[in-house]
Structure formats: C-alpha cells, structure tokens
C-alpha cells in the first residue's frame, strides 16, 4: 500500500472506532457532543503514560480508554439528569471544559501541544479497530442493544417492561466514553502530536454526523457513515477547494432523501440480513 492509502485507511480505522463511540450514545437516544473531550482524555492519558513510564502502546491505549470510561461514568450521573437537547448541550459544555482544562495543563504542554513518542503502525491501529468492531458487533447481537433501542424509543414503557433505564443510560454513556478514549489514544499514537485544539466541538459534531448519516438503527450505520465521511472528501480531491462544498451538499441531499440514515433496519431486512 502506498503511504497515502495507508494514511487514509488508518484514519478510517480510527474514525470507525469513534463512530461506534457516538453510536453507543445515540443508540440510547443521547446526543453526546462531548465525545471529542473523551477522545482527548484517552489520547493524553495514553500519551502521558507511554512517554513517562515507558508503557507499551497497547497498555497505554487500554489505560486511556479506561480513564475516559471512568470519567464518563462519574460524569454520567450528573449529566444524565438532563435529557434531549439539554443533554446535547450539557455534553457540549463538558467537551469545551475538558478542552479548556487541557489548554491550561502545563504537564502535558498546555496550548503548545504535547509530543507522543511511541508510534503505532497501521497494522496495529487496524487490528485494534477490528477488535473494537468485533466486540460491538457481538454486543449488537445481545439483549443490551435491544435495551438501548427500547430506552431510546420510550423510556417510560421500557421501565414498565423491566428495563433498568438509568443503568442502561449510564452504560451507554460510559461505553461511549471508553470507545472515544480508545479512538483518541490511537489518534495520538498515530500522529505523535496532540493539541487541545484538535479535540474541539466540531470533531464531536462530525462524529455525531458519522452516526446519523450512516443511520443509528443498526450497528453497520455508523461504520458506513465513518467510511463516507473519511473517503468521500478524498475521492473529491480532484475538485480541490470545491470538495467540501460538494460534500456538504451531498450530506444535505442524503439526509433529505433518507432522514433515518443510509443504512436502516428495513434496508437490511430487504437484503435478507437480520436487523
């Protein structure tokens, strides 16, 4: 593979992981606009541990994911007091605060950025992404994904049917944090340089777009969304500066025609898949 293709597919692998992170929240009806903040936590924790304690990369990534997961778990209780648009805005504020704190943390370089000494290869990143995809695929076949759909569709009725709504919501939020942390850590070890500004609100919005464009009904949706968002602007490279214009118009048109996203349960059923 040429360097260019390899870089592109590495980015795709990372984006698949973070898209699944957005999917975990959105599948439970939570629009998490603070995902970039959790990515930042994972990225910085992993970078710090591998830089200073000579931890192997895979342990660093696990630690980064775990740190993001724990923080998400702690924050889930207060943040999930809010719902709907309020939840989106609370997580948005959360992401901004995390970014702001990193901008002031001298120990990880503050606004100047933070170098990451250990480099992760394409194979390593692709392998990690495949493991994450496999785990989430397994989860999507369990009761847990039904709980998510139930809570998203109607929290009160699912409560009546014995689903523990609160626990399911917290699980979805923390799992989202875990995956975001892993994705962020992979990002850090691939580009070898972190800046708090990389993890801005636009990144969180883009991750939400991967999921919503691809479709939140199935596990495949976010992956397709991530692929479209990563590859389409590259395919349009020839048109150079027009590419984001074309891309934005494409997104608007797709959402107009398929408001439930590209991949829906109906579509899969029609092609014989089990949705």
């Amino acid at each position: 593979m040429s360097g260019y293709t390899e870089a592109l597919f590495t980015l795709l692998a990372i984006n698949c992981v973070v898209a699944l992170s957005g999917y975990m929240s959105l599948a439970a009806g939570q629009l998490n606009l603070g995902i970039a903040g959790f990515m930042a936590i994972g990225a910085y924790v992993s970078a710090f541990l591998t830089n200073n304690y000579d931890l192997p990369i895979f342990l660093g990534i696990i630690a980064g994911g775990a740190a993001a997961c724990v923080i998400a778990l702690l924050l889930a209780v207060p943040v999930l007091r809010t719902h709907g648009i309020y939840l989106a805005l609370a997580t948005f504020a959360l992401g901004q605060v995390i970014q702001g704190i990193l901008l002031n943390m001298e120990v990880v370089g503050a606004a100047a950025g933070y170098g990451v000494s250990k480099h992760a290869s394409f194979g390593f990143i692709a392998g990690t992404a495949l493991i994450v995809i496999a785990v989430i695929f397994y989860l999507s076949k369990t009761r847990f994904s039904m709980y998510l759909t139930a809570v998203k569709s109607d929290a009160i009725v699912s409560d009546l049917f014995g689903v523990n709504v609160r626990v399911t919501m917290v699980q979805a939020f923390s799992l989202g944090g875990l995956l975001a942390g892993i994705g962020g850590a992979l990002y850090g070890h691939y580009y070898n340089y972190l800046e708090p500004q990389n993890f801005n609100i636009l990144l969180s919005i883009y991750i939400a777009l991967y999921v919503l464009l691809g479709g939140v009904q199935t596990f495949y949706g976010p992956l397709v969304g991530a692929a479209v968002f990563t590859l389409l602007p590259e395919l349009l490279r020839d048109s150079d500066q027009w590419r984001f214009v074309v891309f934005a118009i494409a997104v608007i048109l797709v959402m107009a025609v398929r408001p439930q996203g590209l991949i829906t349960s109906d579509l899969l059923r029609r092609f014989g898949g089990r949705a």
Partner: protein
Amino acid sequence: MLFVQQIVNGLMLGGIYVLIAVAFTLAIGILNFLNFSIPGIFMLGAVVIWHFLASGWPWLPSILVGLAAGVVASLIVERFTYRLMKDSEPEIPLVSSVAFLVLFENLVIVKWGSDQQRFPQFMADFNIRIGEIIIGIGQLVSLATAVILVIAVTLLLKKTKVGRGIRAIGENQETARILGVQVHRIVPILFIVTGLLTAFAGLLFAINYQQVSWSMGDEVGLKGIAAMVIGGMGNVGGAVIGGLLIGLTEVLSIYFFGANMVDISVYGLLLVLLIFWPHGILGSTAAPREKL
C-alpha cells in the same frame, strides 16, 4: 478604572451574543430545532457586506445586501432542513444544519479565500471618553441597535397576528394547524427573523473587531448557544440576560485569569447551570422547555 472598562467591553461583546442567542432561542423554543447553520449565516452576512464595501459600495446598500443574503440563506436552510424533516427525530435536522454550516463556510473560502479580511472602520476614531473609560461610538450604536432589534422581535411575538401564530406553533404545532394557523407560511417568517438577527449580529461583530473571516461564526455561535441556555431556552428575555452574562464572564475571566481560562469559565458555568438549574434564569420550571 480598568475594571469598569472591562465591564463596558463585556456588555458590548454581550450585545452580539444577545442577537445570536435570540436567533437560537426562536428556533429551539418554537420549532425544537437546534439550528447549527446560524454561525454560518452570521459569517455570511458579514462577509457579503465586507465584499460590497471593498468593491466600493456605500455603507447602506452593502449592509442591505448582506442582510438580504442572511435572510435568503436562512430560508434555504428552512427549505432543506426543517421543512423536510419536521416529523423526524430532533437530531436529524441538526445534521443537515451542520452540513449547511460547512457549506456556507466553504463557499466563502472558495470565493474569497481563507485569509482574514480587514473590515473598514464604521466611523473614523470616534470615541466617547468618560474619565478614563472609552466607549466606541460604533460599539454604542451596535449595542443600541441590538436592544432595538430584540424589542422589535418581542413586540412582533406579543402584539401581532404573526406573533400569535408563532407562539401557537411553539405551544403545539398540530393544534395550531387545526385552529387555522398557517404553519407553512409562519415558519418561513420565523426563519426570516432568525436570518436577519444573525446577519445583523455578524455586521456588529465586523464593525467592532474590524475583521471578517470564514470561521468568525464558530466561536460566537457556540457562545450564543451557551447564552441561550443560561437565560432559559425559548425565552427571548432570558437570551438577553444570558448574552450579556456570557459577554461579562468572558471579558472578566480574561481580566482576572487570562485568556486560556475563558472556555473553562463560560462553559463551566453552562455545564453547572444545565445540571443543577436546567431551566435557566428566566425559564419556567413547570414545562421542560419554556414557550414564548
């Protein structure tokens, strides 16, 4: 004295946030639509005005064309986001509105490049000095205009037939339709108001900071969202208080803690408020979201 000057500056900055917050609050309060294209319209209005000024047009026609551009952009957004998807889940029109933000920003880059452009001075160095405090006339005019615009919107909502229709839609769209409110006519009016307010805020920003660029709307838009929430979503008066509060918080946290603390202060305030006091300052505690 420097402190008082900071308060003055904070209020001036807050005036811009007020307009954006009102625009957001109209979309949320009535349509339950978090319209992310607003920062794009903000930027588009300012850049179009700059373009015509730079090509030698006088102020008034340039401003009118810029505001018209904002209104047209807002109507296009309505056509392709809200109207198509009003029955879908609330996240869906949000996706398209973000896409419109990307579209507007990149169209501007294609046409005018990604450099920051210098916006001409509205009035040659003309300041009022009260003791050591300096108040720019341009700033003062813009704050006054912001106040007038907000009052006009409030009157529109409270006193006119269209305003009654808008409030009815905010209560319940289906019921409003049954009772004879022409929803498909009134919603575009709402978007016209939003576009006008937003583009005007862009003009004020350009006058105050004497620069325009494709990304000028991002920061301001986010602060406008924060202002809207702090005041109480869907409440015009709350948006005014929230806007001024955010302006003050921003300027004062720069004054006391330095520029890097701004985001922590502003969004920390937002986060704490959302968790402990989600209805905002003027929002009602009875309804999940305050109607106008």
